[in-house]
């Protein structure tokens, strides 16, 4: 049996066993047939539910070519310690807990990864930049900070070209999805690191509930609203048609807003770089949102993506337009009540859409809001070459395939990884599934929306705009127009400094 086939078969067997569709004896038999007799034997003594992802993880190791390159190129830097601050994301967690050991063994370079909530990462990096002390060698840069850090990190294209001795063979910068390079990493022709991860809005819905009401995945925004109304009404309060991430003052609220704004032909800024969230399209989006909120569970304006995801996971809401990263979690039978019941689709089509030329600061309208991040080497790093080696390894195709498989089905930023047999092998119902990734890829290519790049964006997106929107949904304004006009005034004030 070919290795790929063996892995696929193993995944299928494991999944059936985990879901109780296969007995222990059958599972052990199948394991033995796959040459895993030792595994089967070692598990006999355990009490129940014996398979652990740990086995699958053991079989997933970096390619020998990559390891050979690391051993060769990393030798002069043995003994160096690299530090990186990052949000707790699937790629960072997979590298930190399972993959960096291979890098450290091969190179002798120690990697210390500090995992923090997003706002604390920003605080640490800002302090590092302000002090120029180089306490971190690698920066995890959320797409909304690209402009702020553009002068503080190396452009990876220059690094790759300027030091051929350290360049990873077949690194292939062109393999990064062009839309992500534009949307996440580019600012004023500077490449602010390489795309590292790509959470993006996709349509996740309860297939069973949709079938119950004879509905199909919403093709456009009016259909999303009508589907949600039908389910909310039909379920009589037991379940809601959709859900949201609408916590007042939180970045998540701004993310939701942009999806509806862009989907109604609006934009945050116009070509003159003026805030236009309060124009006709912006108000149309607010009117739509007002109606949609009525199909969401009570308390939605206290939730970030965390509560939004849980409302679907625990069967309170039937759909969400939100981060695709949640989908593998929904499929995990040990964590949620909806394993195998959800399906994915590309975001509903926008009613109308502005093009990039009609917006300001490189804003890209699209219902599939992306919240990706890039990885870059700090200009203040004391060991930029060692950090560059790590960065290439962490973002090369082989490592990305491992991250996607081990990190619970997170969306890759490289085109080739979507077709990697290891990734395809996990495309089944179960924890860490990759069965949603085709939709993620299509969303990136055709429906992706990106926030504008400007140094003030971190403040606008995480404070000014969501505070104003939160006030609106709390009844602090008389009308949507009053709210958006006020937000416009505040945005202008921030822009003027």
């Amino acid at each position, binding site marked *: 049996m070919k290795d790929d086939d063996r892995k696929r078969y193993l995944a299928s067997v494991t999944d059936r066993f985990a879901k109780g569709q296969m007995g222990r004896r059958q599972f052990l038999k199948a394991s033995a047939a796959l040459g895993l007799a030792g595994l089967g034997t070692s598990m006999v003594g355990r009490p129940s539910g014996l398979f652990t992802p740990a086995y699958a993880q053991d079989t997933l190791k970096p390619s020998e070519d990559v390891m050979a390159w690391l051993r060769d190129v990393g030798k002069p830097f043995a003994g160096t310690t690299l530090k990186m601050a990052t949000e707790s994301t699937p790629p960072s967690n997979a590298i930190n*807990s399972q993959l960096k050991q291979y890098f450290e063994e091969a190179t002798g370079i120690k990697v210390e990864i500090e995992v923090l909530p997003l706002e604390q990462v920003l605080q640490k990096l800002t302090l590092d930049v302000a002090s120029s002390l180089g306490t971190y060698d690698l920066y995890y840069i959320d797409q909304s900070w690209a402009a702020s850090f553009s002068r503080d990190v190396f452009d990876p294209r220059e690094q790759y070209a300027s030091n051929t001795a350290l360049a990873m063979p077949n690194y292939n910068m062109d393999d990064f999805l062009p839309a992500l390079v534009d949307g996440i990493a580019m600012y004023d022709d500077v490449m602010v690191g390489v795309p590292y991860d790509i959470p993006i809005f996709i349509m996740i819905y309860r297939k069973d509930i949709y079938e119950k009401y004879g509905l199909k995945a919403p093709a456009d925004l009016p259909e999303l609203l009508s589907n949600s109304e039908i389910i909310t009404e039909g379920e009589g309060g037991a379940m809601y048609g959709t859900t949201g991430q609408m916590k007042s003052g939180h970045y998540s609220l701004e993310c939701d807003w942009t999806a509806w704004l862009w989907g109604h032909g609006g934009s945050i800024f116009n070509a003159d770089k003026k805030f236009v969230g309060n124009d006709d399209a912006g108000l149309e989006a607010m009117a739509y949102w007002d109606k949609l909120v009525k199909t969401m569970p009570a308390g939605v304006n206290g939730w970030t993506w965390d509560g939004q995801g849980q409302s679907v996971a625990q069967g309170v809401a039937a759909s969400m337009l939100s981060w695709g990263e949640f989908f593998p979690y929904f499929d995990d039978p040990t964590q949620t009540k909806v394993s195998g019941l959800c399906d994915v689709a590309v975001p509903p089509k926008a009613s109308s859409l502005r093009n990039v030329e009609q917006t300001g600061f490189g804003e890209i309208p699209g219902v599939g809001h992306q919240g990706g991040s890039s990885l870059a080497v700090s200009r203040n790093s004391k060991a930029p070459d060692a950090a560059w080696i790590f960065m290439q390894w962490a973002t090369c195709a082989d490592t990305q395939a491992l991250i996607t498989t081990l990190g619970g089905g997170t969306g890759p930023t490289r085109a080739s990884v979507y077709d990697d047999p290891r990734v395809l092998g996990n495309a089944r119902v179960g924890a860490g599934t990759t069965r949603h990734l085709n939709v993620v890829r299509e969303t990136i290519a055709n429906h992706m929306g990106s926030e504008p790049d400007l140094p003030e964006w971190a403040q606008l997106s995480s404070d000014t705009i969501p505070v104003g929107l939160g006030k609106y949904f709390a009844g602090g304004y008389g009308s949507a127009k009053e709210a958006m006009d006020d937000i416009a005034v505040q945005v202008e004030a921030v822009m003027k400094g």
Partner: protein
Amino acid sequence: MYQSRATRLLRTLAGWMVVGIFFFPIYFWTSTAFRSAKDIFNWPPKIFEFTPNLRNFEQVFGVTLGLGPQVVNPGGGNFYMAPRLLDSVIVATFSTMLAILVATVAAYCLSRMQFRGRHHFVNWVLSTRMMPPVAVAIPMFFIFKQFSLLDTFTGLIIVHALMNLPLAVLLMKSFFDDIPAEIDESALIDGASRWTIFRRIVLPMAKGGIAASAVLCFIFSWTEFLFALTLTQTSIKTVPVVSSTFVTSIGTAWGNMAALGAAAMIPAFIVVLLVQRHLVRGLTMGSLKQ
């Protein structure tokens, strides 16, 4: 005083209600540590009906107890936080010891010695508590980086001790004030030195006050977040800082967070138990003046 049966019953009920109100959050938080994600997010919430499991503790402590379905990757999981508990114990213990050591001597001087500007000195000590910690944290970061104290036990212990020092000094000064100065004077007449009086007479009498101050210092250090976040990176981390790392891009691991939180209550609880004998006396010391 005679109390009717109804009054007594009512008083007992009120007592239990107060205890219940204080205890319920602890129960709910601790029980969350024993719940799976499905049980945590049950709607409507189930307070008592859930299937307890140790999975969250297994992940936080990086051990497999063999009671659950999955094997934990020892020391490798993202929620493996056991070493951070030890970091917290070291920082809280040593910063408390340092603060108490310095504060005891300082407080005794402020209570007994007569020197110019003594009262201003007390106000000055108090004023350091009025400064918002966030205003100090960033300059501290630069200073610590220069002195290579960033991300070290020594650095964090010093900061936590400094942070607790004003409170400890003022508390202990009031305890020393409560001990009659005549005792010192008698000993002085008998030929005892200041140091002997402090060590042999005053210190044993102020044990309760020291215990109460130590407990407060320990708890403040145990729960301090801002300095611990700003002045540490990867080498050491305290429980409050790592608790925030359970907030991930795909949701919050409430079960693991609760497991760490429940485990983190134990050391503080042990400290309180150890000094319990002196605590009640210490907390009421200084409340009455002669």
